[in-house]
């Protein structure tokens, strides 16, 4: 009884973790138990780029915004990094630095325009997405060139003992960001700003700077996701990030982060991403291809958000 009470009033998203466990059990049953833990770790490895991009999206949703330029940013990082790296490890530092600086610039512009001119995040980031997409089309003239250095591909392909390096990077960033969100003044202010911008201004925070920082972090995380995705596929390919915008939003809201800002957090986004990805690979194994993925995704998002909304109302 006491545990039940505690769970009901805690902000920790238990529901999503129960769903994650249910999905894993369903996965075992659907594959008649032929799935080993190493399969799950492999799924986690493939899910890492989405996991990292979704954490960025979560930060932006927490300050009451939305970032539709995540997908275009990921595609851009892939094309820029591959074309500068040209498969050589000695170009690593320069290409990664240029890519991440571009990401920071995109995030800063998004955040500055949204916070300073009080413009709709949806529209600003949508325009930014078109501009970034246009930018990389002009840069590549429609032909994706370049490749990723073989040694760098370790960040997505490599294993440290039984654990995938990509998964470790994901969990590492998660731990660092969670610590910042829950244990630092910056994190608390981020939540308060998302919950009520006016109140946060009256409390004397520079809410404008907080909002900008969230967008910069989001674009940088999208950049890291882009690097990992590039390391995963190994070459330049136009438009590889396209699905990541809506998928990152979907994983975030499945994890219980509210659209209105200030509610939710990274601890829900992690299982949110895993649920999305495990269901997709389950569909592939059962033999329901592409179509099944979309159907399942639609149903999962709608039901999870509906449940979250009902829980909120009951409280």
């Amino acid at each position, binding site marked *: 009884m006491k545990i039940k009470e505690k769970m009901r009033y805690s902000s920790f998203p238990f529901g999503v973790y129960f769903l994650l466990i249910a999905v894993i059990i369903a996965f075992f049953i659907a594959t008649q138990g032929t799935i080993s833990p190493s399969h799950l770790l492999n799924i986690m490895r493939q899910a890492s780029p989405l996991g990292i991009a979704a954490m960025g999206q979560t930060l932006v949703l927490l300050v009451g915004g*939305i970032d*539709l330029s995540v997908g275009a940013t990921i595609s851009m990082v892939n094309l820029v990094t591959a074309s500068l790296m040209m498969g050589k490890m000695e170009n690593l530092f320069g290409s990664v630095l240029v890519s991440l600086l571009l990401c920071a610039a995109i995030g800063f512009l998004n955040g500055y325009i949204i916070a300073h*001119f*009080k*413009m*709709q995040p*949806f*529209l*600003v980031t*949508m*325009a*930014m*997405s*078109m*501009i970034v*997409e*246009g*930018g990389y*089309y*002009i840069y590549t*003239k*429609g032909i994706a060139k370049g490749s990723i250095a073989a040694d760098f591909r370790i960040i997505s392909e490599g294993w440290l003992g039984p654990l995938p390096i990509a998964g470790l990077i994901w969990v590492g960033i998660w731990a660092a960001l969670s610590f910042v969100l829950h244990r630092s003044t910056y994190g608390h202010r981020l939540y308060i700003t998302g919950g009520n911008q006016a109140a946060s201004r009256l409390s004397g925070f520079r809410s404008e700077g907080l909002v900008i920082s969230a967008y910069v972090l989001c674009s940088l995380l999208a950049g890291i996701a882009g690097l990992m995705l590039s390391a995963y596929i190994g070459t330049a390919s136009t438009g590889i990030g396209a699905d990541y915008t*809506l998928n990152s*939003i*979907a994983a975030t*809201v499945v994890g219980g982060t509210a*659209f*209105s800002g200030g509610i939710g957090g990274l601890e829900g986004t992690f299982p949110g991403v895993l649920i999305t990805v495990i269901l997709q690979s389950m569909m592939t194994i059962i033999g329901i291809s*592409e*179509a*099944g*993925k*979309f*159907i*399942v*995704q*639609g*149903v999962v*998002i*709608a039901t999870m*958000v*509906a449940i979250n*909304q*009902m829980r909120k*109302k009951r409280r």
Partner: protein
Amino acid sequence: MLNGSVRKHLKKAVPSYVILAVIIIVVSIVSPSFRKAGNIRNIIAQCAVLAIVSIAQTNVLLIGGIDMSVSSVISFGTIAVALYSSTGGMGLAGALLLALAVGAVTGLINGIGVVRFRIPPMIITISTQALLKGICLVLMPKSGGKVNADFASFLKARFGVMNVSAIIALVLYAVFFVIYHRTQFGRRIYAVGNGEVYAAQSGVPVRRTIISTYVISGLISAVAGIVLAARISTGNPLVGDSYAMNSVASAVVGGVSMVGGVGTVLGALSGSIIMSLINNVINNMDISPYYQYITRGLVLVVSLLIFQLRGRRKAG
């Protein structure tokens, strides 16, 4: 003839018509191939689909919502027509009904999700978008099928520079202009968009109004899908994808606010023409086609800035 509130909403559409006029005048002077009747006919034919979807999107934006599922409804429309229309008149009628029914049901699910389960409009419409996209891919994994040839040539039949699809779009704009600015339902939409609580206190059936707008959005998107099917002559499960974002952009460029309650459907018309025109202009001016994305983005930014500055001047 036009009362104050209609004039206020129409004023929001003025900048987009100015931008449109400037683009047309400048490009006509610079590029002789742009002025040719054949090209103008082309542009008008290209505009029809986006113009129709933009009505659907405007309708939902006016109540402060958004509809991302228009893309899948459009794709489904092309698939329904391509799969069933070539067998004759009965098949065609069935295909059109099926497309419209699926549009309406999608809208109904969106509307119920928003008012009954309080799911944010963006999320519930992303869900139905994914769900319906899956169904489209089951029915037709790759583009294919065949659109009834008579039906396609009817929608492409020309009257001067206009074709039937464009005329359908214009008629829909006229109908919705009257609905929004002359009927009780239209006043209710603006009332809900300006604040659900106040609207409810003044006796507006808020929930019913919201659900109706989503159903209308689904129906109009289905019409856009049917018109698109005639243009491309096949069904395609992904052909509608770009229309979700582009219809939002068109409406916003046309002065429709995303917060709800401000703007007019006539603005969406000029907005959608600007958005479709960019492609054609870039081809006719011999600029690399890769500049079209960036130009669309910049046009969106410029119009956002115009509205922001105008709004600020009024406030200050």
